């Protein structure tokens, strides 16, 4: 096991813009770090740099106590699970799992024991003589996990391993991966674009955009205390409402709401207000001093126990996550209320969070 440290790591392809720029990130020993971000944000490149499959343009990468910038992949003692499984189609499950040990000249009995143990843990014991082509997607991904496990590496890398599986299997495999990490305690780096996977699996999450690190923290830290609109919008489903508002020094206004904020006079006139859909409640159930938000219903998405109501007033739009089922007709006017402490404010240009009074969950009333 080992920690991983990036110091000002940058990756360029040719003369183009940096795919990863000056990344500083420390992954502790035994940690499950999830790298999350949209396509092309550089997360897979970071993973491949750890694996040694991509060279590093500048900066230092160390695994354990060694600087590994120039160390070939085979010497890094790393196992990787790929999105398309990357199993050897002409070998049986047993041979697939034993391959890494065989090329490293492990004793035959030891190989047999390790493969059988891993197969037992992953429920593959009956499939050892099958070939990947005869297995389902979920089984193949478990074989890929087993192949990574048997070598007992110091770091596990996962490159969107669940993206090829259907929704049900994904939930199942998430728990398998989570359980394995608890059992083995190996440092793991997991790349995904799915924020649900990130929230449920990660001990910490690093959110990336355009090759830059937006924020690192535990899932709850990112959810409750986002540093910028990108993280605010990326974490949570449905994502946080980000509404442009006008600040006149006494109150924040947009077509949907008016929020008294007397002490923001030093700030710019154009701000972005962030409000999570689950923080909106029916006005009738809310304390009288909570600010109101009024708009016409544009769309209602019913999810059974709850529903997502899209409200609009002029160019401002919010989504509210409301309990129960009510018969709403698009075009009706709906009044909602929210706790003023649940509001986040962001600079409209830099998109950075404005922590005017230092409160963790919002700017306070």
């Amino acid at each position, binding site marked *: 096991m080992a920690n991983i440290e990036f110091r000002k790591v940058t990756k360029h392809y040719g003369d183009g813009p940096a795919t990863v720029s000056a990344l500083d990130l420390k992954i502790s020993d035994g940690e499950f770090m999830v790298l999350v971000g949209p396509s092309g944000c550089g997360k897979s490149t970071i993973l491949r740099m750890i694996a040694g*499959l991509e060279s590093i343009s500048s900066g230092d990468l160390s695994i354990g106590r060694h600087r590994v910038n120039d160390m070939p*992949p*085979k010497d890094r003692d*790393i196992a990787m699970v*790929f999105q398309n499984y990357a199993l050897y189609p002409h070998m049986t499950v047993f041979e697939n799992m034993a*391959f890494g040990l065989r*090329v490293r000249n492990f004793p035959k009995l030891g190989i047999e024991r390790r493969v059988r143990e891993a197969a037992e843990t992953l429920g593959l014991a009956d499939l050892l003589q099958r070939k990947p082509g005869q297995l389902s997607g979920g089984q193949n991904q478990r074989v890929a996990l087993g*192949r990574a496990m048997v070598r007992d590496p110091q770091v596990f890398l996962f490159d969107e391993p669940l993206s090829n599986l259907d929704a049900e299997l994904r939930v199942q495999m998430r728990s398998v991966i989570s359980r394995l990490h608890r059992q083995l305690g190996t440092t793991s780096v997991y790349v995904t674009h799915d924020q649900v996977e990130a929230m449920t699996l990660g001990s910490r999450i690093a959110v990336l955009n355009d090759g830059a690190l937006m924020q690192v923290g535990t899932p709850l830290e990112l959810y409750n205390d986002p540093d910028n609109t990108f993280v605010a919008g990326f974490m949570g489903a449905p994502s946080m409402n980000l509404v442009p508002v006008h600040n006149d020094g006494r109150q924040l206004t947009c077509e949907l709401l008016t929020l008294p904020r007397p002490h923001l006079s030093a700030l710019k006139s154009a701000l972005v207000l962030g409000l999570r859909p689950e923080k909106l409640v029916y006005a009738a159930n809310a304390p009288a001093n909570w600010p109101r938000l009024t708009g016409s219903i544009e769309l209602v998405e019913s999810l059974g126990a709850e529903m997502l109501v899209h409200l609009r007033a002029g160019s401002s739009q919010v989504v509210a996550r409301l309990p129960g089922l009510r018969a709403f007709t698009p075009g009706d006017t709906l009044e909602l209320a929210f706790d003023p402490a649940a509001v986040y404010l962001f600079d409209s240009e830099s998109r950075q969070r404005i922590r005017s009074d230092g409160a963790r969950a919002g700017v306070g009333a």
Partner: protein
Amino acid sequence: MNVVLGRARRSVPSRFARILSDIFSWRFALLVFASLLVAYPLLWVVSLAFSGQQALTLVQLPADASPAQHLHALIPLPERWTLDNFRALLSEQPFLRWLGNSLVIALATTAVGLSLSCSAAYAFSRFRFAGRERGLMLFLISQMFPAVLMLIPLYVIVVQWLGLGNSWLGLILVYSITALPFCVWMLKGYFDTLPYEIEESALLEGASRWTIFTRIILPLARPAIAVTGLFAFMTAWNEFILASIFMDDESLYTVPVGLRFFVSDYASEWGYFAAGSIIVSLPVMLLFLALQRFLVSGLSAGAVKG
């Protein structure tokens, strides 16, 4: 249960009727006609080979032949079936030796051609190096020129400079190298379809490039290797012009060159020629049969990402 029986009873006459209607359909007639068109010339060769005679005419028609006799003459069947031609070919003529020469040259061409093209194609497919694009383009350009055009330069290089005329090695060298461009392109196309992650995964597991090539890539590329190998074998096996010019010594002839001497200005032994050509076709046919399960997937290699 009744339903099942009822269905079965109904399906018997309908299936029979379907077969009958198939047989009497225009499609069937067309297929029979096409098959006859292909088989008829071959039948001449087979008949000649098994007739025991050397003349090209199987049936001597009298001057006042009846229409029935004319019709009979159209159907190439020997008057008596015998293996005499084959027996004489293998015992009295140096045919066995030529067959041996051809086999050695074709097998060695396949082995040399495949080992060179597999490693070259892997490099072209996986590595980025200076001259890669140009190299591939040059391979393609070399295919534009017919073999006859290269005959004189090849003769000068192989026979006059290297002194490899009249030897197996000379022909093996020339055949392997002329087959190389096609083989490299064919194999490269297939290697391109193999997911790169498989190799990256093996790299991380500690395998060397050589281990990956021999234990993962080559086994996975078996269909393409089978097709390419077959191509290399047939190139060497069927080639006539180069072999006839490079080989002066009769004992070093390959089969196509040897066969040519049965029907020349001085001889017209069509029986031997026919028997020889049947024997020559056998190895290729056997190879096709042995490799047929690879052929379909190999020929469509690269068509879709599998």
